[in-house]
């Protein structure tokens, strides 16, 4: 019994890591309709920013945390300007954005290897390491923080997108930049806002991730899981991304814990495909009939 509970907690905590990354990724996806593969790279940079702010510049944690968010925001905006904007200007199909994003991701990762080096770096201990223990079940402090932060950012984002004018403008711009411009929307700055927000989320996700695990040039790779989680939940749906993340986290945990860890990913992928067979747009994805 204890073990099941513990596994559930583990699943939730892994899920919150995925969720934290998935929110930012899914934000850009839901708005821009393409998979921003550079998101992982920005997360990784966020982890480095936070690391250097704390170790080199001796900043207090929260300052470093927000600072890393802001720096990552700048990076994301820069990536948008360099790699996506010229494509947008030509109305290129989403495939091209995806490839450009892959290029950017490759560039960022290898740039870090070439300049900072491939070594692993560890955040100093900031929060007490001992997990809370409740009758033999252990809950990490950082895990709870990640859970909270992903919940808060999800709610804030959903509110922002669904209930504010700028949020609507963002959705409109994504659907048709040209028509949006005709509404008086400054599409350029709207898109920058989206990438900025996504970047900020990536940055703070990176810091938390770096603190929980470690910092190295390939940590961005883990975002592939949040990509999968977002599909689970239904692409373009922010709550879907978060729910998908938790489901993936728990499924992975349960498979590792009770079936066979060797085939964990095999089983999660099979489950994914099974879900898609029955719900082709994921759990919460909107399916719009193609109106002829």
């Amino acid at each position, binding site marked *: 019994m204890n073990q099941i509970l513990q596994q559930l907690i*583990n699943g939730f905590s892994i899920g919150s890591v995925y969720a934290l990354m998935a929110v930012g990724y899914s934000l850009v996806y839901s708005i821009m309709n393409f998979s921003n593969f550079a998101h992982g790279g920005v997360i990784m940079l966020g982890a480095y920013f936070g690391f250097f702010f704390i170790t080199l510049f001796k900043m207090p944690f929260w300052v470093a945390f927000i600072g890393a968010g802001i720096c990552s925001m700048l990076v994301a905006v820069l990536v948008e300007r360099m790699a996506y904007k010229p494509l947008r200007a030509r109305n290129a199909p989403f495939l091209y954005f995806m490839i450009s994003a892959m290029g950017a991701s490759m560039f960022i990762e290898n740039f870090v290897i070439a300049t900072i080096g491939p070594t692993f770096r560890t955040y100093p201990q900031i929060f007490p390491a001992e997990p809370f223990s409740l009758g033999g079940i252990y809950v990490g402090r950082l895990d709870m923080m990640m859970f909270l932060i992903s919940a808060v950012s999800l709610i804030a984002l959903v509110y922002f997108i669904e209930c504010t004018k700028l949020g609507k403008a963002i959705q409109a711009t994504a659907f048709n930049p040209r028509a949006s411009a005709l509404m008086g929307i400054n599409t350029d700055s709207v898109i920058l806002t989206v990438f900025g927000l996504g970047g900020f989320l990536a940055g703070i996700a990176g810091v938390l991730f770096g603190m929980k695990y470690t910092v190295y040039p390939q940590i961005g790779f883990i975002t592939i899981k949040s990509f999968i989680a977002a599909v689970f939940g239904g692409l373009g749906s922010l709550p879907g991304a978060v729910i998908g993340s938790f489901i993936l986290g728990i499924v992975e945990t349960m498979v590792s814990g009770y079936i066979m860890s*060797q085939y964990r990913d095999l089983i999660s992928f099979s489950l994914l495909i099974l879900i898609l067979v029955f719900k082709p747009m994921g759990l919460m994805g909107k399916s719009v009939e193609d109106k002829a």
Partner: protein
Amino acid sequence: AGCSNQGQGPAGGDVVKIGWIGSLTGDTAVWGQSELNTLELLAGELNASGGLLGKKIHIVGYDTRGDATEAVNAVKRLVSQDKVVAIIGPNASSSAMAISGTLEEMKVPDIATVATNPKVTVMDGKVKPFNFRVCFIDPYQGAVAAGYAFDVLGFRKAAVLYDVADEYSQGLAEFFIKTFEEKGGQIVAKEAFKSGDTDFRPQLAKIKATNPEVIFMPYYFKEAALSAKQARDLGIKSVLMGGDGWPSDTLLEMAGDAVEGSYFVNHLDFDDPEVQDFKQRYNAKYGKMPELNGYLAHDAFMVLVDAVKRANSFDPVAIRDALETVDIEGITGKIKIGKDTHNPEGKEAAIIKIEGGKYKFQQKYAVTD
């Protein structure tokens, strides 16, 4: 098109090129860069003291990203374009196995650093003529770990956590289990994860339920540190044990108390004075400590130098012949290449324990059979 080089540098002049391949990028870049740094350090020192057979040594290193296909390309370029006389590296067994054909075709010897798969040098009972290595092999290391755990530490119940997508980890796990069970021990859990994972709690929670005395964790230090930490977070008190993927300053930094009291199998005793000397020279030049691969690259270079000297020639085939009879004392131990295996025969493993946040050499340990 198998025409070999005749020991001449490209200009026929004073420089002789030695190749290196390994990963400078990708997720194993840490180890590759350490190897290349070591070779450049040693070559510089050698050149400063008059070179080798009167010639200056130049190291040409190419990145493989840890990918076997790239390794083949890199070797082809080294032997045909750069005309190296011998190659050091790679660290990945897969790359080392993939390049055998090319080496044989071009008749240039290669000395692998940390490629521990038995099939790197021997295939179907036949030794591959141009593949050599300076490290001991997976079965040996797995057996050493299992033997030490069973015989010396007296454990009877072991669990194994390994990286299913990693050749090295899979190899070690397999041979550990085999030996441990042969000795009469019991493997109570065998769990896996996949390269790139950062969270191991589900597997560890499952392992915890089986109450092992020791958990064998044959993978690299990043995962080792993470899984050790997470194991302690889950309240696991078992002794942890690892292989030669563990030793690194980063491990201690990352894992802190979590690995206190753990054991691992190593190629060398870090406190050995010769090792210390090398460490300092490396640190002086690069401002950081070498990773384990650096030590083995060091010995590979020593082995090569010895072979060249004895062959008294830069002819790759002559070097190859001389490599078969190498018998030197490296910083990772005695290296006597076996003619039929091209492995360092009877190379003893060092058992290291982590105590007080430091690596404490326990003993040299060898399994007989």
